[in-house]
């Protein structure tokens, strides 16, 4: 299904999103490096869902609003966003930073949310599972650590670094730092309120995640005992990329029950 580009102005923030497919609504919240292109897993999901992929405030082609100071701002913004689009029973998939945003939304209000798929989300801390320091790693090392299968890293590293791509990377990095520098990649208060999430939750993690180690998945499962936990073998931080087919099957099975 082809994706089309849209812009909506919300809370003074011109927000870019891509939308494609038919079916019940599915919002994909991207991670720290943004969602600059339509990826194969998005195409695949658009066969079954109305897939909406926004650029977060401060990322990609969206504005950098003055009010954007912390992850809570993003959570309230996205509750407004799914309200403005009048989504009902939306599946929210969040990868890494996006998974953190999804949880922050859902502890506040699930009235428009049908289910959550948390894909190696940031947001909580787990003893003994230290995240990689994404702010000290070089861009190349970061990309290498994202994947178990290094051919995915090679593909990304082969992409030309145009001036536009550099600008986007710096913009995304800036907002990631604003939201996640300290406390690093988590909100110490989030864990206290995860019990408020009253919709089905699937936690998806690569066993070989070098960015957010899989120990965090077990801690998240402990905090949300009713959540399903799916661990992918031979897989890094982005199961939706490295294991796209299995990932999409899982989402369909989980969300269409």
């Amino acid at each position: 299904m082809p994706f089309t580009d849209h812009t909506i102005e919300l809370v003074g923030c011109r927000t870019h999103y891509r939308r494609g497919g038919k079916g019940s609504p599915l919002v994909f919240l991207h991670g720290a490096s943004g969602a600059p292109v339509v990826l194969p897993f998005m195409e695949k999901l658009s066969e079954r869902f109305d897939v909406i992929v926004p650029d977060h405030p401060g990322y990609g082609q969206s504005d950098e609003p003055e009010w954007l100071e912390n992850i809570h701002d993003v959570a309230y913004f996205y509750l407004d966003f799914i309200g403005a689009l009048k989504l009902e029973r939306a599946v929210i998939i969040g990868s890494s930073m996006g998974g953190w945003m999804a949880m922050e939304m859902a502890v506040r209000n699930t009235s428009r949310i049908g289910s959550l798929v948390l894909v190696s989300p940031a947001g909580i801390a787990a003893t003994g599972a230290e995240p990689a320091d994404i702010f000290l790693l070089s861009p190349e090392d970061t990309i290498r650590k994202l994947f178990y299968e290094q051919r995915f890293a090679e593909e990304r590293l082969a992409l030309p670094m145009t001036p536009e791509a550099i600008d986007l990377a710096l913009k995304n990095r800036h907002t990631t730092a604003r939201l996640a520098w300290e406390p690093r990649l988590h909100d110490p208060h989030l864990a206290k309120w995860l019990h408020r999430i009253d919709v089905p939750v699937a936690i998806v993690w690569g066993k070989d995640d070098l960015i957010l180690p899989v120990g965090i998945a077990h801690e998240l499962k402990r905090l949300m005992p009713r959540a399903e936990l799916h661990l992918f073998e031979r897989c890094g931080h982005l199961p939706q990329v490295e294991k796209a087919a299995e990932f999409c099957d899982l989402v369909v099975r989980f969300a269409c029950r």
Partner: protein
Amino acid sequence: MPYADLDLAAGRKNGTVWVTLPNRNYDPEKGHRLYNRYLDELEYGEELGFDVVAVNEHHQTAYGLMPSPIVTASALARRTKRVKIAILGSALPLRSHPLMVAEEHAMIDVISGGRLITGFVRGIGAEYHTFGVNPTFSHDRFHEAHDLIVRAWTEPGPFSFQGHHYRVQYVNLWPRPYQKPHPPIWIPSQGSKETIDWASHPDRRYTYLQTFSPVKVVQRYLKQYRDTCANYGYGCEDRQLGWAVPVYVGASDEAARREAKEHFEAFRNVYVRMPIEMLLPPGYTSRESLKNVMKAKAQMFGDVTIDQAIELGLFVCGSADTVYKAFEGYWREMRFGNLLVMCQFGTLPADLTRANMERFARGVLPRLKALN
């Protein structure tokens, strides 16, 4: 104030002596001797006739052993009688509360009878990694902390300060600073338009100190400061401009280079070095500045020899005559009212540091002062 006993190979191997170099490389017994040596050298500066001795703030690094310049400045306040003491500077955004900075600087000003020169900095990028302070709020926190400190020094208390980052119900400083309206404020910087616009503003007219940069860069930013003053509608005074540069004066040009070589190169190529991600975390600089640094990366992050450094004017080195002539030329062109010479750098040992200070104080300093 470097950890001069550093195992340079360990520093090289780690890629940087900042943030991640394990602190097992620090020996407190050697540290004891070093602190006392450096404090003796600073006190000796008064005896030799320097106008100002300066300390600075750096955290969790072998580059500089003064996480709190307050401690060193306090020691100097009691052991010196005439010389001014410059804190260049306190890293405002890194401090959890600016009122502490206001209080500590006021204490030193009062104890020393008004000999404090205050400096404010944001701290370098690496220190946002060590402290966890969010670099994307660095500028905001700096400006707000500055406003709170200056108001605390000058406005009758108690009053309430409600900022975005700092909120205080009762600002009511005891002690108030000795100097009126407050100690002079210097702004050390590696150079940025934002800093120059802010420091030169008619409400502030702070002394802008360009630190450790090739002389072409020093010229560019000092000129930019003067031009900015003119655009604000006033003439820049020479006292508003300063340059901080490592200097080594030897018995001859040849002896100076020979004696300084390994110590300067250790300073430039081991102590200062760090990867770009550490130096410039997101938000620490504008994204335009960051891109310029990325372009100049090979030049900025590669090794520099002493000869290249002298050629670039990154380091001023030679006989007293050579050093005087170099500064005379630079002064005629830039008219900086303040010259801060770093007489110790890297691994430069005590005997060479003292000889350097003495040669500068006797053979260069009086002649430079006569220019003014």
